[in-house]
């Protein structure tokens, strides 16, 4: 079944709602103009602390705007409960200029309880307020004890907070230039991993946390001078900077690994790039022995990621693709040639000798074997295959040989599971028996700058192609630069038959342009008598749907009094992000189809106490005939009283 992104936040079947009455608070409720097309939306900006321990209860603080009347927490998964404890409106420090739209700012204290069995990882919460459902905000559940930074100043070795290892500490770089220091003792030969992860809300505002490791080493000038031992972007420690992938806003992740040659007291300093501070800039610091350090998966959110370097490839991935396709296939698309016209013409003269690979064939793993820089040293692999290897050193090339049938449609997918872009930018190319390149994952875009044409290049995590000519081909993979390499430059490259399926589904529910689309604003709050338009973009992968056919949209499970009107456009290869077209775009990007839903709440529509999850369903029409419907995703909706009072 195809799902929308952030499915964990939306399904009423799997999503548990815990509501606690707010006994002590009555919020000021502002009257709303019934004709206001864009009434204020409740929005969460920060959550602190970002983490809690399974089996415990803790207090947290959220900040945000338009949160009047917040009365309950809506969690993404079972095992979590909580209540709104206290709420206060925060007066702005500076008066707004005349005529400016001012959103009311709030600080709300929550109580969160996590059941012991909940399991670790990323979770979400939303607030139900008088103005409706808020966006979702992320936090993490740990198995071990979680502490928070002290209120007292701890900005130097002399007042550093001592921590016992392993440690999980919630902290915040709340003010410009703030740094938080933590002291610990390390044994000789011990290797520790320091992870700092920022909230995705902070990451979205350009906050980049950084770590510096110190020991006290007397300088000629100062006998108590801290000496920097390693830093999160220098070469002395192992460093991973997981930058903000717009499709994976789990927050920024910085990892520093260090082996201690000498025992003693050390200090880890958490700061931010150029001292950026603010209430939303919260972080979690994890310090653990390298043998027990959290895996990258712990830090990452795992929504469906069609085109990302950090999705996990393998047969599970193939199964997931099959789950995102129609039971009945659409007619085959005209072949898209990966080779030149010479290949196409010669192919017509020769009968196919090599069988095409069935779509459900199981991919075998093939691990590179050095030396394999030259084509003659290429490891021959049967398809489908999952190639694994590492660009061990600068200018290293790994070569693999494979055979394809004429007309074979293949997908090439790349995963980087340690070093990742922009540190490691894997580039592959496929050459034919004559050494002529027929395909690569280097996409090229032409732009104009200062009235000159310039090229922008991109390495793509996925490329599709049709091989017009049967034969043997060699795939060469390397880093796109001639400088980078090392054991962490590991890749996994899957070559498989194309599986037409639904890729990413993007739902646009923002009512204001300044709301960050990556911070999960997916929700609709409707007033009786109000209509709202929602744009849905469906990506058609590997020829899932053809331009000549049609796809309509249905909305199921609407609350009483709400109707949906839908419309759709034809799929096209237009870039999702706008801008100039990528050359040979069909190789590098899916066809996209824009669908429109207008949700119309009648004046008599009943106010809802809880969000109602509606389902977005696609209905294809193939050559004029309706096909089976296909779920695209889910969306929480609330009907809010026109004056913001849900009790009416």
């Amino acid at each position, binding site marked *: 079944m195809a799902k929308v992104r952030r499915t964990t936040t939306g399904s009423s079947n799997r999503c548990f709602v815990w509501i606690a009455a707010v006994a002590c608070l009555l919020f000021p409720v502002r009257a709303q103009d019934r004709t206001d097309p864009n009434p204020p939306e409740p929005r969460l900006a920060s959550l602190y602390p970002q983490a809690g321990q399974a089996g415990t209860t803790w207090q947290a603080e959220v900040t945000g705007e338009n949160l009047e009347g917040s009365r309950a927490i809506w969690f993404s998964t079972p095992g979590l409960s909580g209540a709104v404890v206290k709420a206060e409106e925060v007066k702005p420090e500076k008066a707004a200029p005349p005529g400016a739209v001012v959103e009311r700012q709030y600080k709300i204290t929550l109580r969160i309880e996590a059941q012991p069995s909940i399991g670790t990882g990323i979770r979400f919460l939303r607030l139900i307020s008088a103005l409706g459902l808020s966006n979702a905000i992320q936090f993490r559940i740990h198995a071990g004890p979680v502490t928070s930074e002290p209120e007292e100043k701890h900005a130097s070795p002399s007042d550093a907070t001592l921590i016992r290892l392993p440690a999980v500490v919630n902290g915040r770089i709340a003010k410009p*230039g703030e740094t938080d220091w933590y002291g610990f003792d390390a044994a000789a030969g011990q290797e520790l991993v320091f992870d700092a992860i920022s909230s995705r809300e902070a990451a979205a505002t350009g906050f980049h946390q950084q770590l510096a490791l110190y020991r006290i080493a007397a300088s000629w000038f*100062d006998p108590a001078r801290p000496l920097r031992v390693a830093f999160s972007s220098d070469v002395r420690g192992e460093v991973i900077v997981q930058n*903000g992938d*717009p499709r994976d806003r789990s927050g920024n992740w910085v990892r520093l690994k260090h082996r201690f040659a000498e025992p003693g007291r050390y200090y880890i300093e958490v700061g931010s*790039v150029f001292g950026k501070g603010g209430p939303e800039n919260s972080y979690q610091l994890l310090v653990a022995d390298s043998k027990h350090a959290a895996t990258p998966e712990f830090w990452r959110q795992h929504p469906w990621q069609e085109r990302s370097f950090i999705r996990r490839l393998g047969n599970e991935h193939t199964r997931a693709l099959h789950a995102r396709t129609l039971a009945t296939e659409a007619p085959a698309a005209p072949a898209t040639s990966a080779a030149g016209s010479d290949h196409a013409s010669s192919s017509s003269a020769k009968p196919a000798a090599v069988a095409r690979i069935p779509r459900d064939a199981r991919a075998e793993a093939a691990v590179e074997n050095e030396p394999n820089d030259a084509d003659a040293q290429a490891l021959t692999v049967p398809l489908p295959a999952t190639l694994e290897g590492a660009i061990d050193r600068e200018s290293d090339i790994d070569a693999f040989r494979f055979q394809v049938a004429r007309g074979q449609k293949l997908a090439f997918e790349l995963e980087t599971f340690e070093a990742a872009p*922009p540190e490691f*930018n894997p580039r592959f190319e496929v050459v034919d028996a004559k050494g002529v390149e027929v395909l690569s994952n280097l996409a090229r875009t032409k732009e104009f700058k200062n009235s000159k044409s310039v090229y922008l290049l*991109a390495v793509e995590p996925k490329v599709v192609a049709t091989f017009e000519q049967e034969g043997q081909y060699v795939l060469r993979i390397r880093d796109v630069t001639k400088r980078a390499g090392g054991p962490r430059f590991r890749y996994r490259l899957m070559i498989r038959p194309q599986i037409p399926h639904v890729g990413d589904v993007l739902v646009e529910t923002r009512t204001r342009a300044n709301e960050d689309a990556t911070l999960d604003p997916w929700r609709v709050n409707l007033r009786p008598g109000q209509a709202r338009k929602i744009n849905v973009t469906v990506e058609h992968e590997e020829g899932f749907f053809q331009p000549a056919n049609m796809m309509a949209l249905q909305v199921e499970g609407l609350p009483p009094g709400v109707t949906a009107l839908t419309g759709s456009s034809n799929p096209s290869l237009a870039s999702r992000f706008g801008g100039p077209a990528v050359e040979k775009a069909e190789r590098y990007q899916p066809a996209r189809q824009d669908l429109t839903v207008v949700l119309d709440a009648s004046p008599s529509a009943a106010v809802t106490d809880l969000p109602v999850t509606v389902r977005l369903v696609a209905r294809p029409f193939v050559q004029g005939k309706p096909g089976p419907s296909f779920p695209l995703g889910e969306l929480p909706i609330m009907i809010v009283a026109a004056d913001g009072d849900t009790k009416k």
Partner: protein
Amino acid sequence: MKIRLVLCAAGIHAALAAAPPVPPAKVVSLRVIPADPTLRGAGTAVRFLAMAKYADGVERDVTAQAEPTLSDPEVAAVGDGNRIIAKADGEVLLRAKFGGRIAQTRVKVVQADKPRPFSFAREVGGILTKKGCNTSECHGGVKGQGGLKLSVNATQPKDDHHYIVKGGVFQVLTTESGGPAVPRVDTKEPEKSLLLLKPAMQVPHGGGQRFTKGSPDYDRLLGWIRQGAPFGEESTEAAVRTESVEVLPGETILDANGRQQLVVLAKLSDGTVEDVTSEASYSVSDVHVAKLTPDGLATALQPGETAIVVRAAGHAVSKMVSVMSKPAPDYPAIKSHNYIDDHILAKLRKLNIVPSGLSGDAEFLRRVCLDLTGTLPPPARVREFLASKNPRKREQLIDALLDSPEFVEFWSFRLGEILRYRQRSTQLMKDTQLYGEWIRESVASNKPFDRIVRERIAAEGYAGPSRYYYELRFLAEPPEIIAEQTRLFLGRRIECARCHNHPFESWSQDQFWGLAAFYGSMVDLRNTVMDDSVVIDAPEAAAKVIHPRTKKTAEPRFLDGTPLAKEARDDPRRRLAEWVTGHPYFAETLANRAWDWFFGRGIVEPVDDFRSTNPATHPELLAAMAKDIREHGFDLKYLMKLIVSSRTYQTSGVPNETNSGDRTNWSHVVPKALDAAVLMDAIAAVTGVKEELKEGPMGVPASARAIEICPDLFSNKFLQAYGQNDRATLPEAKPQPGLAQALHMITGPTYSTRMLDDGGRIDRLARAGVTNRQAIEELYLTALARFPERAEVDQLDALMRSGASRKEVIFSLMWALVSSREFAYRH
């Protein structure tokens, strides 16, 4: 409050005695120059010079007193003006006798039976140069003058021939001539050629009269036009060309009122020489020091040094001419610490300049701490150092400073200036951070400088040095990059050649674009699912570098004209990086810049403006340091230690009678203003109160120093007033005093309210438990790294006892200290 300052005002040169000083009687050696010249063609002549070296180490021109003789009068003869004139093929010995010594040189004559072939560059170009027609102010300007374009100093003879014979003017963006093409020669009626009519003022000429009708130069040009205005021998591949020009003697030190005939030799590609002394043009940079006649006779005017520039035969060279002070009666013997001192002291000795004494411990301590770490020594360390009797304490201090974390911070700041660590992108501050951390890590690990440079020039991927290439959200343009790289790493300013051949030097537009082409395949890689950009070289995707005049794709060529081999073009910037760091220019540029870091002035000044017309004050020293740093693997710490260990660096800043006017021979240390950020840190160290630096949501951590900040991210009035460099371009100006600084001292919070903050030094000293004398001493030690003088203590103590508020008095004292030049300067 009077603060004693050790700084001295610039001295005034003592007037020379009316009578020329008598040189030391004893001649140590005698030589005749040029050494073993070969002359081509009968009638060719070369001047010779007899140079006598005296006991004071100075060589003097004694040609007029020498007695020249030739071993074979059939081969050559001695003519007027001490010229040897070729007569027949063969070799002849020229002997000169002076002061009881004899010297000789062997003169060879070849092809005496053949007439000297005509050369446009030499014959016509020489006249145009001598007469000043092709200076940059006249027809040598970018687009020429009055419809005639000439290359400066006839550096491009083919172009000159074209513009004279065919007419037309230079266009920056096209090879087409602009405007109507008016030939300057008329081969049918040669006397009506504009090339003759204008300079002879037979028709109006904006440049005035350059020669008269019938003068030798007029006749030579007329003869050339009558012959059809040929280009001459240089139009063939086998032709003899002028490869370089040399000015003799190499070193010129004049007594007061002394004279020296210069000989300008054109060195030809066939190994022969031509004397072009009379065809050369001369200019003197300091006309108060020496003057030159059109025939190259230099005469001393007053003590000092001046550069002279000689332009001839399509080349320009320069040299220093020094005029000695009065001989010191008892010139002291000064111990050299290393070879730097050998060079410096030797020249000072020749100039009769006595270097100042060795700096005192306090003076040295403050100087070396500021120069190596940008940090004032703490009072406890000052006491300890001054009290120490260890004869190796200076050396040990230098080692301790070089190994300190403060060294890393300060030299990250210094390198950050020249490598331009600044906010490079409008959106991605982490990119800037990456670049800054790369610089810091390079310093912390004492990465060899050639490796630092290779990493930056050849940077690919997302690594720190690659971030340099971003300006805003795009890659910088190749012409901008290469102009900066060449200036920074090779010490040459070639940016003029972007639009036209360099007006003063021999850098051509082709050379510029050949270098820029190394960046022609550099492109921006952007992962479509990430924000971050990556730098790669991808020839297949690059926009190429187009020569603006020819409109053709520029091919990568090194500065010397060597094209990049085809097989090396997949990684052009790495090849460029290897070439740059392997070139002699690179080592000499680094040595010169290091000298500037510690002395406030380069051996070549400005430090990034090496050119033939800007000579080094100590070329042999520069060459020796360049060789040394190359042999030591471009180890910056080695170079720094070498410099700060020298007697020259450790010389006192207090001048003496002989050296107060000296600014170029490092006879005494000249004070230099502290950088704005260093000064801010120094004030914070004295006051115990740090400046809070904030900019919107960004802020500088309390533990960070001002030298650690990214300058254009945090605006601060104090830093701006004191000349903080925003690094938008390579640093040019050095900190200079200004009105804004004076106002800031009076009203700025750094100098006033902030000093009184709770927890600061004033707050602490004003409390009970600290005696007046202790407080005074601590302030002096902290701010000036020296004990106060007894009179200063007595005065201040009396003031503090007089009933005035103790805190107020301490505040006043601190203000006076940090406002003084002694504090704000490194001396």
